[in-house]
């Protein structure tokens, strides 16, 4: 029970971040390697608004996500938009440059010491023999709501239909009057906001350090590759799946005899993904076309 909750906490965080990444890849075909840094931007911005400017928490979180959106927008205009039409791998390089810049700026602005958005002890709730904090329940619930919202927008609204049209063929979609570049921009900003929200959760549940970014990016990529590149739901399911495997690896007494040493937690989870891809190289949920 506690194991599943632990996996839900870690998985929700990963799903938020990987979901945004999968959207961007699915719609634009672009790899964003500054994703982890965008996560930190959201987290640190919220920390700054809440701790230094002493704004109320809700306002700070909203502000943090907005700052994340603005950074994502600027990043899109400067580092992605001029390049991705020429070749969709170009942003791979430009976003690496962006990630290094953001790393430097964060270190300069917020110093190397770790920061926590909510320092006070969390309110722990006991569910049977499992324990979870209110904040973590929020995290799980908000992620769930956002994912449902995404599903609704994608599958039941005009915008969603346009997005899916752009995914299938952006030139054809444009000839029918759909403003594909605008949709691209929107999708990129939404992914930045989801990432920023992920950063807020990290800042509340654990703490923020300037070096967190790269491991976050790696995990998100593992999820979208395992889920079938560009498949939003596949990425999200895989984010939860990887989290669950990670928790099970160290949390279960295997064959009643031994625990896997905790140092192998991530390796075993990724090994599982590799083995899986060997047998089904297209990923868990690959469809015929790229899809969002």
């Amino acid at each position, binding site marked *: 029970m*506690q*194991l599943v909750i*632990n996996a839900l*906490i*870690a998985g929700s965080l990963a799903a938020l971040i990987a979901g945004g990444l999968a959207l961007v890849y699915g719609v634009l075909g672009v790899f964003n390697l500054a994703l982890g840094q965008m996560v930190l931007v959201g987290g640190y911005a919220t920390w700054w608004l809440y701790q230094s400017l002493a704004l109320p928490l809700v306002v700070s979180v909203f502000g943090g996500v907005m700052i994340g959106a603005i950074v994502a927008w600027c990043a899109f205009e400067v580092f992605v938009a001029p390049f991705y039409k020429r070749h969709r791998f170009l942003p791979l390089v430009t976003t690496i440059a962006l990630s290094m810049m953001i790393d430097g700026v964060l*270190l300069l602005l917020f*110093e*190397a*010491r*770790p*920061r*926590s958005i909510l*320092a*006070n*002890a*969390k309110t*722990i709730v006991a569910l049977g023999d499992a*324990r979870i*904090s209110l904040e973590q329940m929020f995290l799980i619930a908000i992620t769930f709501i956002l994912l449902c919202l995404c599903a609704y927008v994608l599958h039941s609204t005009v915008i969603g239909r346009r997005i899916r049209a752009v995914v299938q063929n952006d030139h054809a979609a444009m000839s029918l009057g759909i403003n594909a570049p605008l949709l691209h921009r929107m999708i990129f900003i939404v992914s930045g906001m989801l990432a920023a929200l992920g950063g807020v959760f990290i800042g509340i549940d*654990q*703490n923020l*350090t*300037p*070096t*967190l970014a790269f*491991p976050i990016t790696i995990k998100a990529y593992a999820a979208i590759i395992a889920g079938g590149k560009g498949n939003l739901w596949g990425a999200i399911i895989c984010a939860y799946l990887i989290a669950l495997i*990670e*928790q099970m690896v*160290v*949390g279960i007494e295997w064959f009643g005899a031994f*625990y896997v*040493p*905790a*140092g192998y*937690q*991530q390796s075993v989870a990724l090994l599982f993904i590799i083995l899986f891809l060997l047998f089904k190289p297209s990923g868990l949920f690959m469809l015929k076309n790229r899809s969002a």
Partner: protein
Amino acid sequence: MKRASLLGIFFILLSACTGGESDNGPIKIGYIGPLTGDAAAYGVDTLNGVKMAIEERNAAGGVNGRMVELAVEDGRCTGADAASAAQKLVSVDRVTAIIGGQCSGETLAAAPITEAAETLLLSPLSSSPDVTEAGDFVFRNYPSDALKTKAMAKYFAEKGWKRVAMLSENTDFAMAFRAALTENLGKEAVVFDEVVEPGTKDFRTLALRLKDVSFDVFFPNAQGDAVMAAMVEQMRDQGLTQPMVTHDVGDSMTLVDLIPEAVSGMQVINVPSAGEGGEFETKYRAKFGDAQSTIAFAAHAYDAANVLMDSIAKVGTSGPRLRDALYDLPEHRGIVGRFSFNADGDVVGIPYVLKEFRDGKIVKVKDIAVD
């Protein structure tokens, strides 16, 4: 390794062009420490300590009339970066001596290079027992964990804590501490012993497993305070109420900022909080603001720089003569106390104290004697 050796050749070629050192120009001292990365807080504090000592010395006329210059390199708390940093300082900057590294991994990786160049390496912060054997030119004014783990084992025995649970981060410092403590406690006393990858922050499932283990004391063995905060908080979140005792890393006010309630009551066995509340701290704050980890780290670095400059004033800049001067040093009166060096280059005269987190402060509980 290949990259490091190529770099080395490159630097040697470069240095061949720079010409020899003059006798009345500035004296160059190198610094290696983590200025970026998870351990950057230590780097910033110790670098500021060194800078402060050098500025004061230069303001007072320098060392025998010569100004002291500092060449700073980022070791990032990793062996690879520290090795190329040492290579550069030795070959390109041609420093007289190096203050560093801070992380034990840095010092251990830099030591073979400085050893070959007969350049003094003086670490203000590395505590791994392996540093004792690292070389003839390697010194430190921070005590070895071989002693601290002894002090810790003794304290556990005193309290009647027979079953110890520990959680270690896979870094040179933490792993050496784990090995030394296990040796001092005896293998059977360690009832839970897990090692996680550096930077791990999700310990919830390990905490869950720990609930099924009966233990008397928990020892969070992390390399930096960000990871330690996650360990301590998630253990407490799971309702584990056993006492916690840790080492230097826990001696950080950052923990109070991060997890004020969870950390309350945790005990720390460390060197005394040297410099705290005194003139040194006032001067430090005026220049650099609050220490990022603890003022004691800056104090150790400040003393290291001073003991080095005192020795240069006495015997000049030759590596072997500086080495002998440090071995023969009767006593240095610094911020951290009176200390000297033994035949291994380890510091003698720095005591240990037991501290505890109480009401958002770290207070001294008592001295701990090690024999």
